[in-house]
């Protein structure tokens, strides 16, 4: 397995150099890979490791995005700070959803419903609040000023997204070995047995939720300043939540590299299909593909692509074992 680790490190080291080599379209694709890898990793904490499936993470993204945007445009606060405010506010929402869900013992599908309900409620409220632009959305004027988290050079976004993804992945890798990570994995398997072994399941689920929603909220700022327009139906919508969760699920929920691998697999495909299908006026085709993919993964690859791959490689490396 030495050479695999070396290869991964080599790729990681090479990534910063890519933009100089590749054209701007490739840079965009990679930026998306990294960004969704970051979001997927954020979701992974609560959805993959703790096993609390949330299909409403768009709510946190949206809250973070709108907060940072509003603070900047209305109050002149630089998004570099607004990012944390957005994250904090998203974490508050996460705390609310988590508290309601976990205190009232909502598991599995009930919890999923709760998260979807919350993100839809956010969507409807945003769409009906004129102060944030209502249904038409909120727009940010492009100034290209780095102080305002805006860059003329798209390569800057590439590096920021890469940094976000690496930071989140590093954080998860670090947490996995510590008490936090071990407890989450146990909670995913059997909460009652955890309680019997002295684990405060409510506390750790809440912590996971807080971390996850905070990170997602921070990602919201990037989203806002990458796209410059926030539409409630897009930013708080179920399709975006699906985008967030499908990469870690396909790549391997509950593993460190799962969200990254998943994003590397899916983001380019999503971009290509969007290009292809959107031109033919085929709305929603890529979502059909996502749905089919989800079904296929559940039936044939439940642990995700990365664990399968890792096992296959391990077997190759030690055939006698």
């Amino acid at each position, binding site marked *: 397995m030495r050479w695999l680790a070396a290869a991964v490190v080599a790729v990681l080291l090479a990534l910063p150099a890519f933009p100089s080599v590749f054209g701007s379209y490739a840079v965009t694709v990679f930026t998306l890979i990294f960004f969704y890898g970051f979001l997927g990793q954020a979701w992974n904490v609560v959805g993959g490791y703790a096993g609390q499936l949330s299909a409403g993470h768009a709510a946190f993204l949206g809250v973070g995005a709108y907060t940072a945007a509003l603070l900047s445009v209305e109050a002149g606060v630089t998004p570099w700070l607004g990012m944390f405010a957005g994250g904090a506010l998203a974490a508050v929402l996460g705390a609310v959803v988590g508290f309601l869900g976990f205190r009232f013992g909502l598991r599995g599908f009930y919890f999923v419903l709760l998260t979807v309900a919350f993100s839809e409620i956010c969507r409807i409220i945003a769409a009906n609040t004129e102060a944030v632009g209502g249904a038409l959305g909120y727009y940010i004027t492009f100034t290209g000023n780095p102080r305002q988290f805006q860059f003329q050079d798209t390569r800057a976004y590439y590096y920021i997204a890469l940094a976000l993804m690496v930071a989140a992945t590093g954080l998860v890798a670090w947490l996995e070995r510590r008490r936090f990570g071990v407890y989450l994995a146990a909670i995913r398997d*059997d909460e009652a047995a955890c309680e019997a072994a002295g684990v405060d399941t409510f506390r750790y689920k809440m912590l996971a939720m807080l971390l996850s929603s905070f990170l997602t909220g921070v990602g919201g700022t990037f989203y806002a300043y990458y796209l410059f327009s926030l539409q409630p139906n897009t930013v708080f919508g179920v399709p975006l939540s699906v985008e967030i969760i499908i990469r870690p699920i396909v790549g391997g929920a509950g593993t460190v590299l799962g969200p990254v691998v998943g994003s590397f697999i899916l983001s380019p495909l999503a971009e290509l299909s969007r290009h292809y299908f959107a031109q033919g006026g085929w709305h929603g085709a890529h979502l059909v593909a996502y749905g089919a993919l989800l079904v296929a993964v559940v039936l044939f690859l439940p642990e995700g692509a990365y664990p399968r791959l890792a096992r296959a490689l391990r077997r190759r490396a030690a055939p006698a074992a």
Partner: protein
Amino acid sequence: MSLLEARGLSRHFGGVQAVAALDLDVAEGEVVGLIGPNGAGKTTVFNLLSGFLAPDAGQIRFRGRSVLGWKPHAICALGLARTFQIVRPFPRLTVLDNVLVGALGRHPDAGEARARARRVVDRLGLGARASTLAAGLTLAERKRVELARALATEPALLLLDEVMAGLNPTEIATLVGLIRDIHAGGVSILLIEHNMRAVMALSNRIVVLNFGERVAEGPPAAVASHPRVIEAYLGEDDVHAAPAR
């Protein structure tokens, strides 16, 4: 020194009174056997003691403190650990990680906890399987994993719920030896068991439950020939037919 004191414990489900005004004590250093026919309320008692169920009435004192209304993890932190009737190790975690979860409660540092978990794993003879996922173990091994996990929480009192169930005689003998060993290490034990030989061999004292009430109590030999006990297990007609032991 009284470790556990339950007074007037009651709990009903719908129309059924599962536990009725039960008094139960475990003193430090004891092994107490809890026996009774199926449906006598034994597991319910465990659930009440460990915080998984709230009693309708009654008081529970553990180590001198009232644990009424405490959540299971808090009671575990105080020193009461339990196993489950249908064994529940964490299937997607390795044996070592399973036990690690227990150890982390006492040792927040993962490295330290891992070392301690390793020692417990070895002590229970699971060293060779330490890196195997719990889902891939035999029943006897899974029971030992659950036991190891409970042990790793460094309990003062261990509640064992039918640990012998489903095991063959060799495995039972091994487990009895392990439990004796654990007891010798200073852990008091309250065990629910249907396997009479194991109960007789391990217990200092036996409490007999039927229909949620205590029906008899005393040293093993006395309980075995107690008419009400025989009646509970075998039915009224056989009271006089029971052999002397």
